[in-house]
């Protein structure tokens, strides 16, 4: 594996737990203790009921493609060798939508509502990225 030349996550107080989970190949999301809403991006209050009572849950890793786009232009040199690549908004079974990549199939095989499951890409010592592939 050559030197990783793509942007890395910017960890902040809200997202630290999410990225720590990724390192252990777990998808961790906040669940509101009052209304049960599972949210992403991470935030201090529930966007639905405004409660700050929160617990972290581990999502099962399965979802479906809400929408996607196929990049034919690299807006960052790190992605030049990946073209064409798929950026997708995946709706997890637990509710949140995650911006991610679809891998493990050709771009022209990706469809909205396609069922996908998480697959982990260990990119550095510190970081693993949750990407998604067609559910087998």
């Amino acid at each position, binding site marked *: 594996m050559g030197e990783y030349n793509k942007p890395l996550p910017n960890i902040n107080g809200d997202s630290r737990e999410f990225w720590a989970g990724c390192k252990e190949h777990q998808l961790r999301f906040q669940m509101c203790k009052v209304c049960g809403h599972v949210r992403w991006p991470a935030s201090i209050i529930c966007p639905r009921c405004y409660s700050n009572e929160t617990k972290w849950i581990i999502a099962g890793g399965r979802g479906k493609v809400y929408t996607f*786009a*196929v*990049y034919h232009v690299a807006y960052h040199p790190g992605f030049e060798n990946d073209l064409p690549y798929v*950026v997708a908004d995946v709706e997890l079974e637990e509710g949140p939508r995650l911006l991610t990549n679809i891998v493990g199939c050709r771009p022209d095989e990706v469809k*909205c509502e396609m069922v996908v499951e998480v697959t982990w890409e260990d990119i550095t010592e510190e970081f693993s990225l949750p990407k998604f592939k067609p559910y087998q």
Partner: protein
Amino acid sequence: MERNADDAVFGHFGAVAGYALAARRAMHTFRTGPETWKRIAVGQRRWANLNPAATMYDRPMTFEDYYNARWIVDPFRLFDTCLMTDGGRAVIITSAERARDLRHPPVLMTGVGQHNPSYDVHQATHLAGPTGAKKAGEMALRSAGITLNDIDACEIYDCFTYTVEITLQDYGFFGPGEGEDWLKNGTIEPGGRMPVNTSGGQLSEGYYMGLTPLSEAAMQLMGRCGERQLGPATHTKSPEIILCSDNGGILQTHSCIVLRRS
């Protein structure tokens, strides 16, 4: 717009792809896609070909040209995306009373509406409509005391072809998925029954943000548009009322403005 800075981790950058995500969801939700958008790209180009100030003035475009252009972010090809332009536009806004003494006949702003669904694009449920255009459009028409039937032309914020479709659809010119049929036979072109983006718009004239549509509407109502002037010169209705739009983010904010000839 880029609230989630970690988008770049997955190679997601900028507005083209954000709108591409919206357009793809629309393709899944109702009947739309390149067959619809090519009519917007080519229709607006025909207006640009009448506008010496347009970047694409001397470059006609066919449906074949549209399909042959390279992909940027699928489902958008090159001609689905607006131009990048160095330049500026200005519109003076003042009271009707003050405007009476000015050199050009004033144009009256008779209705305004705004609606801002304002979700991060990944969490948004308005990508395939209704966008902010629906409520903003209703509000603008209501405040102007008119209906869609009173509109003679539209100047629509056209960062992408899909933006024009979803805006006209949310304003109520046609139902979801009926855009392709509505656009057939040159509806929005010179000679058409509902001219849209008569300067060529941001797709074919120049990208001056919301000022491309607004300044064109004002100029048309003042009768200062030369070869592309709405009326007998372009076999269209002489305009009394023009509807303008502006939107921001990835369909997160929307303004609708009704302009009327004084």
